């Protein structure tokens, strides 16, 4: 068993853990990374979109050998009722650039690649090993971990908790609270395989171009939720997620929601004839800035989903995970370089660096959005999607009704549903929460 002491132990081999381990090992630190899965990625679930800018800061030439599916040239936002969708589509040839900005990826493959880079950088990666407890010294400083493998505790100057949204170690040790039902969403997802050329035909793509659809509306049955459909090379990732508190209150079954989304007339044709090869479920942090826990302490830092670092409004998570992992790694390298100890006071550097990055700036900007959407879910996810569909249909259906009457009917429907004052108030609340 391992008896030597490490500069750092990283718990978890997802985006945050890999970024932290890679950063520290690249700078010559002696790093041990623990992963409970059979291989890195075997416990990880994501949509998944990967943002190039954040990975470039860690592995600049990642495009040479990373398993990337498609680069995105089109984004569709859909507002759905049960028979329709109203959409905003943005497609640009500008995204066909030498170094594309966003890619779809398949996490199990991507994480294996990332982990190989971590090992090449010099870290020791131990899979099939669950970290079960933190080890403390007599002063209460974290000095390592215990695992489910037989043997002594494994010691390190600092422990990086990259254990994911459902991380047990930090919550059991009282370093942070367990996520609350209203600060996490449960998402279910399927992998639908189709021939490459069929995907390209159905979405109007060529070569490695990709398309993303994100959809809200009656599909979440008045819960706060979002559905997605991402094109991979020869598969489509498709799923839906809603707040756990909403699921508990409504007792809706996630798999029923998923199949209803798949059977929606706007979606059905896109996946027709596909072969499903996997069904996955995962929690997504949704609490935003106000749910971010204490990020550092004596001998430990927490990164990625475990720290609720997820921008639900922009549906960004893996980039915040990667960036927080990298920044934690850089902070630890700096502390080590100055021959300082990994005390709470010194590790505050991680928080300071994170504050000046987009990670906490973006989360702070949208700090009031979760409360707005979570407490008025029926309004935002049922009433408005239906009203938008009604307005759009009234606009495009030509049936001899004079336009003035049509417009009056649309306005009347909005007022009937929300009242004049309600419409103004909704608009203001959204604007204030967004600003």
């Amino acid at each position, binding site marked *: 068993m391992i008896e030597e002491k490490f500069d750092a132990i990283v718990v978890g081999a997802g985006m945050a853990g890999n970024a932290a381990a890679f950063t520290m090992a690249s700078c010559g630190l002696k790093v041990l990374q623990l992963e409970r899965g059979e291989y890195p990625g075997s416990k990880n679930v994501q949509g998944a979109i990967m943002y190039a800018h954040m990975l470039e800061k860690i592995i600049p030439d990642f495009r040479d050998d990373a398993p990337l599916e498609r680069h995105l040239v089109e984004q569709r936002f859909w507002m759905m009722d049960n028979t329709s969708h109203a959409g905003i589509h943005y497609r640009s040839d500008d995204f066909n650039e030498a170094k594309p900005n966003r890619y779809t990826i398949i996490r199990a493959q991507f994480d294996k690649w990332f982990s190989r880079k971590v090992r090449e950088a010099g870290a020791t990666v131990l899979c099939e090993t669950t970290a079960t407890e933190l080890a403390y010294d007599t002063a209460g400083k974290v000095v390592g971990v215990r695992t489910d493998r037989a043997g002594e505790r494994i010691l390190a100057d600092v422990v990086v908790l990259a254990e994911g949204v459902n991380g047990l170690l930090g919550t059991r040790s009282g370093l942070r609270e367990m996520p609350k039902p209203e600060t996490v969403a449960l998402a279910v997802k399927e*992998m639908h395989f189709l021939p490459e050329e069929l995907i390209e035909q159905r979405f109007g793509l060529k070569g490695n171009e990709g398309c993303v659809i994100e959809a809200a509306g009656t599909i979440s049955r008045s819960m706060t939720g979002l559905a997605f459909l991402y094109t991979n090379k020869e598969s489509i990732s498709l799923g839906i997620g809603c707040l756990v508190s909403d699921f508990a209150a409504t007792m809706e079954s996630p798999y029923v929601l998923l199949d209803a989304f798949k059977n929606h007339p706007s979606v059905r044709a896109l996946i027709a004839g596909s072969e499903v090869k996997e069904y996955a479920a995962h929690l997504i942090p949704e609490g935003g800035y106000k749910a971010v826990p204490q990020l550092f302490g004596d001998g430990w830092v927490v990164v990625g989903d475990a720290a609720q670092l997820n921008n639900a409004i922009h549906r960004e998570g893996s980039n915040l995970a990667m960036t927080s992992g990298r920044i934690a790694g850089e902070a630890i390298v700096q502390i080590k370089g100055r021959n300082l100890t990994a005390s709470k006071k010194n590790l505050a550097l991680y928080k300071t660096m994170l504050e000046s990055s987009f990670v906490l700036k973006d989360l702070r900007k949208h700090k009031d959005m979760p409360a707005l959407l979570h407490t008025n879910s029926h309004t935002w996810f049922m009433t408005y999607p239906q009203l938008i569909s009604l307005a759009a249909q009234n606009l495009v259906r030509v049936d001899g009704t004079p336009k003035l009457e049509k417009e009056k009917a649309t306005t009347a429907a909005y007022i009937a549903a929300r009242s004049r004052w309600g419409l103004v108030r909704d608009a203001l609340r959204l604007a204030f929460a967004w600003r």
Partner: protein
Amino acid sequence: MTIAVPTVRVEDKLYQNRYLVDAGRPHIKVRPHKSPSPNLLALTRICPAKCYELNATGQVEIAADGCMECGTCRVLCEASGEITWDYPRGGFGVLFKFG
């Protein structure tokens, strides 16, 4: 109008997945109870792997073999002590091929 959905069989979905079950060592346990709390009862509907079922005498039981380790039940029922939740031993449990 609602969207017509054929009967959903979760078993068929889980059948696609890869698991290494740690036989005889379930990682989730339900505390014995007379009648379940609303949250515990909700798990029979909202657990994405349908691990929780109501038995004939009104108690919630768990068969965790198809568990995808999402943690929904932990978030809802661990704090109250109604369930205990641990990770499967290293290497065991769900093994996502794609994730």
